[in-house]
């Protein structure tokens, strides 16, 4: 416990020291409220529940527990516990908007945490903006993020853009080709929704620019779990690299059916879901060598402590992409509130956008409302999903290529 908490305690201590300096005025010291009310509407049911229940909700729970076990958020020289108001948005954007309105006007919460997913975050964006609440839109990947962050000054985006992911992947592939580890042929499949379309559009352009040969390039409808026809065709094109911009159920199906078909490209990359603990649990040793979106610097002590703490509190491991970033965004929120020293949302928004924060993913400093360092490509290596690209990040591992052939399971 002590080692687990030391990372958290240290950052909380630093934050509280800074907070102590910030609240110099004695008048403010007397106005500390009895609690900080935090509200959120999250997809507990409906099609987004699968993502929300692995990446977002557990981190809200872990963070609230961590903050309250430490006494609360430091406000006006005293620790104020966090009180939670929770709703289910039922994976429905109208419900989400209604819930945000309700949290702000009826429950009068001090801060609102964002929903899960690109679609819902974009849907509630105007409401957050109008109500003047900071929106930590962590789990949204869109090429419109820079533009949206400009339009909604209260919002910040934490997973980069689709183009960043595709470009980092192609940079990595180009390096592997230069090293002679892979050839020129790439097969790509993508899910036909906004996420898949943005990734493949950016990816296609980047692959062509880097002179890769696209030997297979198809999309499939959302919800497809029968991948054999697609994989058979991709396999016939004999690619060196196979890329799937996929969602969790299709990611599982693509991996399983590739194994059954004996489809063994040198690089095997899948989309959302590769970074989930479910992937490791489902495929065991066969996960090794698989690349996917996300990754983290698993050797960093703060992340090790986080992994342990998350598993203790929720009974499950976090995913290796947006989970640690979600937790870090909450640390940023807390530190920003403490630095401002009062529940002044406008000032907190300003601090989130301008300050530098100590978090489990390292020092965080947003630029134009966007988190700058986001892992785009990770790879399972000996049971852990390490970040590979962008290759200049601290802790970036070397890719293991070619991926060893699938083993019988």
């Amino acid at each position, binding site marked *: 416990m002590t080692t687990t908490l030391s990372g958290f305690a240290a950052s909380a201590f630093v934050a509280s020291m800074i907070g102590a300096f910030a609240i110099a005025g004695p008048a403010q010291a007397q106005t500390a409220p009895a609690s900080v009310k935090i509200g959120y509407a999250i997809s507990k*049911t409906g099609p987004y529940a699968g993502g929300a229940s692995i990446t977002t909700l557990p981190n809200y729970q872990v963070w609230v527990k961590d903050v309250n076990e430490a006494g609360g958020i430091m406000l006006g020289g005293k620790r104020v516990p966090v009180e939670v108001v929770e709703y289910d948005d039922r994976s429905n954007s109208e419900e989400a908007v209604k819930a945000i309105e309700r949290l702000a006007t009826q429950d009068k919460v001090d801060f609102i945490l964002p929903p899960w997913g690109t679609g819902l975050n974009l849907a509630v964006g105007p409401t957050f903006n109008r109500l003047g609440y900071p929106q930590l839109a962590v789990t949204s990947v869109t090429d419109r993020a820079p533009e949206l962050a400009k339009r909604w000054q209260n919002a910040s985006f934490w997973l980069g853009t689709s183009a960043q992911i595709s470009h980092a992947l192609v940079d990595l592939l180009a390096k592997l080709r230069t090293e002679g580890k892979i050839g020129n042929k790439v097969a790509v499949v993508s899910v036909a929704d906004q996420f898949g379309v943005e990734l493949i559009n950016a990816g296609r352009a980047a692959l062509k620019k880097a002179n890769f040969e696209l030997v297979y390039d198809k999309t499939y409808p959302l919800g497809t779990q029968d991948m054999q026809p*697609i994989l*058979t065709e991709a396999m016939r094109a004999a690619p060196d690299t196979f890329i799937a911009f996929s969602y969790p159920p299709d990611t599982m199906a693509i991996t399983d059916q590739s194994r059954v*078909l004996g489809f063994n490209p040198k690089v095997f990359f899948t989309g959302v879901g590769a970074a989930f603990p479910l992937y490791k649990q489902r495929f065991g040793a066969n996960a090794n060598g698989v690349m996917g979106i996300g990754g983290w610097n698993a050797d960093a002590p703060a992340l090790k402590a986080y992994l342990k703490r998350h598993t203790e509190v929720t009974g499950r491991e976090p995913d290796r992409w947006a989970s640690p970033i979600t937790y870090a965004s909450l640390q940023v929120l807390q530190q920003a509130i403490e630095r401002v020293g009062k529940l002044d949302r406008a000032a907190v928004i300003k601090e989130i956008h301008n300050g530098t924060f100590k978090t489990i993913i390292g020092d965080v400093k947003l630029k134009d409302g966007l988190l700058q360092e986001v892992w785009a490509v990770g790879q399972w290596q000996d049971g852990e999903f390490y970040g590979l690209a962008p290759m200049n990040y601290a802790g970036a591992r070397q890719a293991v290529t070619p991926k060893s052939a699938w083993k019988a399971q």
Partner: protein
Amino acid sequence: MVLIDILISGLILGGMYALVAMGLTLQYGVARILNLAYGEVLIASAFATYVLYTGFAISPLLGLLIVLPLAFAANWLIYRVMLTPLVKRARNRVTLEIDSILATFGLLFVLQGIAFVVFGGQYYSYSYLSVPLHLGGSIVSVNRLLALGFAAALGIALYLALTRTRSGTAIRAVAVDPTSAQLVAINVRRVAGFAFALGGAMCAAGGVLTSMFLTFNAAMGVVFTMKALIVVIMGGVGNLLGALLAGLLLGLIETFVARLVDPGLTLAANFALFLAVLLIRPQGLLGRRAS
């Protein structure tokens, strides 16, 4: 070569569709209950199989022996407690259909809610018999082949039972005309309850077998309900062989389009086929025209 490959993987996929739909055709065709909670029952059996396999090391195939009787009993109970009052007060088929849609819509949320409380929203997936098998030059996965085999066996066995046995004839009589069936001393409510429970057990078989290769979570029931509805209506409501045929056709056309045209058009092809059947044979492929 490619055609054989398409044929085999298409049949395998179609077998899954047929398997998932057969229970619904019994429930809708004979018991006259359009069960909107059908997919939730399927997901519940998938969860049960997952728990039995990962928690107690009971293989999904042995799990069938546990899950199927349980599903039969649970569905019989649902029919007796929840649906019998609706059947009693329904004046004709249309009112029963509307009432049953509303009631099972409620049941959907209850079952889904329980699944969310117990299992949360996250995805579940396990590996069982995910073993490649070389069949006529193409590769199929044993668990999927098994699902096809079950669908075919169950479909044919039940078809024979319905057409060749006395109680099967009673079931068909109820399906054709519940009012007149009473005149020949058939206990309509008991037969309908039996058919509903049997449909529930077949639905559970679908859940157990597809859980071997599909990733599922508590929210996914409605996907199966929709797929099953399409297959049932395409095959002819209440007709098991029709469901088998429609499922296989859908699987074949989907695989054909994915391989030779574009995988992005599989859904479009499915719905085009569905639409064509509705336009040309509104009663379904093997359905009888309503009198």
